[in-house]
């Protein structure tokens, strides 16, 4: 089932239902496996990236770009996070300190143990994106889920055409994944970085992401935009992308909602009849338009 955007290009984020259940919990999908923190990167003052490996030395699971993991601390609880990266025997999640659990996670050190279950949800449509130009638009911690796709695409570089990353945050200090933005990615893809306000340590572009997006005037021709960030940024960027000629089928975003089970049962992450944990988190704008406005 694909939708046509009029140019003969069709993108649909909802592929086969998430029946495959590639985790090591054996029978009960709500039981986490134990992972050890094998690395911590301080991205910003309130974002840390945790590299996790199973206590058995194995990778907990192999997610597709955009999929989610439920991460837990025995005495605090669990919450859903996007998986931003993966390696041979690890997965990585970048976590912003916003509440009780994330506060406790930020206190952890390398060698500490936590619980992980997943992977959950659908994923970015990496097959359908082949042979296309890709424009990644991120704001703040919103680059974390998109990064899983950027890294995948760079790993399969020959399958995709022109790549551009447009990313911004409140300040230079608040830019996440600085090593990628300033060392690893330039040369491999277009990098367009902006911060909200002038500051002495920053000589790059200054301004909000939606305005910078408009300024850059990317061609919508054979291009798919993948966007994630604060709701207000997404709202204005969608207007800009529409004005630039991007169809709703060629704009993809990834959503967050409060989740408890992660397997489409507990009820709270619904938008209409869809569950973000199972049918999402990745949706095209065309698909979102079909759902009630409760995002």
């Amino acid at each position, binding site marked *: 089932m694909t939708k046509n955007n009029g140019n003969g290009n069709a993108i649909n984020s909802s592929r086969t239902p998430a029946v495959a259940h590639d985790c090591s919990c054996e029978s*009960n999908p709500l039981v986490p496996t134990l992972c050890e923190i094998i690395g911590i990167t301080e991205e910003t003052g309130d974002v840390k990236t945790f590299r996790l490996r199973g206590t058995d030395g194995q990778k907990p699971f192999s997610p597709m770009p955009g999929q989610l993991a439920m991460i837990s601390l025995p005495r605090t609880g669990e919450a859903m996070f996007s998986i931003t990266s993966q390696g041979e025997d690890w997965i990585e999640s970048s976590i912003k300190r916003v509440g009780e659990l994330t506060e406790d996670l930020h206190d952890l050190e390398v060698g500490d143990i936590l619980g992980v279950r997943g992977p959950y949800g659908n994923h970015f449509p990496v097959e359908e994106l082949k042979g296309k130009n890709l424009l990644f638009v991120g704001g703040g911690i919103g680059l974390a889920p998109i990064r899983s796709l950027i890294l995948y695409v760079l790993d399969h570089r020959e399958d995709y055409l022109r790549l551009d990353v447009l990313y911004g945050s409140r300040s230079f200090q608040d830019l996440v994944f600085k090593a990628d933005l300033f060392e690893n990615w330039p040369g491999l893809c277009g990098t367009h970085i902006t911060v909200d306000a002038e500051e002495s340590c920053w000589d790059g572009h200054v301004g909000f992401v939606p305005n910078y997006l408009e300024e850059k005037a990317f061609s919508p021709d054979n291009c798919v935009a993948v966007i994630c960030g604060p709701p207000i940024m997404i709202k204005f960027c969608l207007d800009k992308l529409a004005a630039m000629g991007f169809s709703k089928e060629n704009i993809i975003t990834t959503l967050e909602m409060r989740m408890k089970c992660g397997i489409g049962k*507990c009820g709270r992450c619904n938008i209409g009849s869809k569950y973000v944990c199972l049918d999402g988190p990745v949706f095209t704008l065309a698909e979102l338009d079909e759902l009630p406005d409760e995002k």
Partner: protein
Amino acid sequence: MDNKTITITKDDLATAIRALLPAYNVYAPAGEGERLAFAALDESRLGAINLTGSPVIPPKELLFPRSESLYTLDPETGAATVPEIAESTLIFGVRPCDLRGIENLDAAFLEKGYVDSNYAKRRENTTIIALACVTSPYETCFCESMGGDPLAAKGADVLLTETKAGDAFTAAFQTPKGLQVKLLWDSLAMDCGSAPAMTEGSKPAMTEGSKPAMTGQHNTLRVTKPDDLPQRLMAAFDDPHWAVLSEACLGCGTCSYVCPTCYCFDIDRESGAKEITEYRCWDCCMFSDYSRMAGGHNPRPTKKERLRNRYLHKLAYFDERYGMTLCVGCGRCIAKCPASLDITEVIEWGGGAL
């Protein structure tokens, strides 16, 4: 003679249930008035069985407990231990609407990719003896408007129907699990020798086209539910009437707790010195923190959005996802809401007044 039915006199009911006790954990409505509840039966409680009403808390709690441990964690090692769920359970006296509620839970917990292990194990181990409603148990029940039949329970293992004379039940055995019950009752009939407790096939079986009529009080509450109600309600998503409908709501959650189809749950943990218990418990979408995220954003910030989500889940979303309405017309939420909210008003509004 239909060897799939037998008749049990009311005088022999306790004997019949006693015969089940060695094989199952038996639950049946027991107690009086507001305290009528599905209770675990043993010899001492057989006299308390009360089949005249329908408990306020529906039998869903025996398949999907109010609160249950998912696993326990050793705080030292973090290792998880999952509790065993293996006991054979029999629920006696499930009303047809509540059975349809269980069929809703089956869809939610067993379909669409993942199987909920705890629910699946309990369901597998449970035998259901339904009780036809020859008398409407609630003044507010409206199962027929929601496509139900007070006298039929297709999915039940055994269906009991009070005879016209009112002094006995006809038992129809509808599944292999039901025939297991019949085996226990058959042996009992032999034990009783000259005064058999059961008479095999002595009453006409319930067959299609010759269903017995409701012999007791039959409620007249009706609501018009058009086939396109989901589409009609979705078209009214932005209607200001949702705010009017929600005005009186206290957000107390009573509607969810008494609902035979509500299945949303919370997961939390109890942290002890020696053991950490991850449990799940019933939740209610009318609670303000139900969908509130870390950082404070809430996609359903006021009771208007929450009530709209609740009714649309019941009358539109669940239908879209699973092909059935998530309301069976049991009438409990109408009877028990302290603010007199009434789902039939929403159905009427969606069906006509829009």
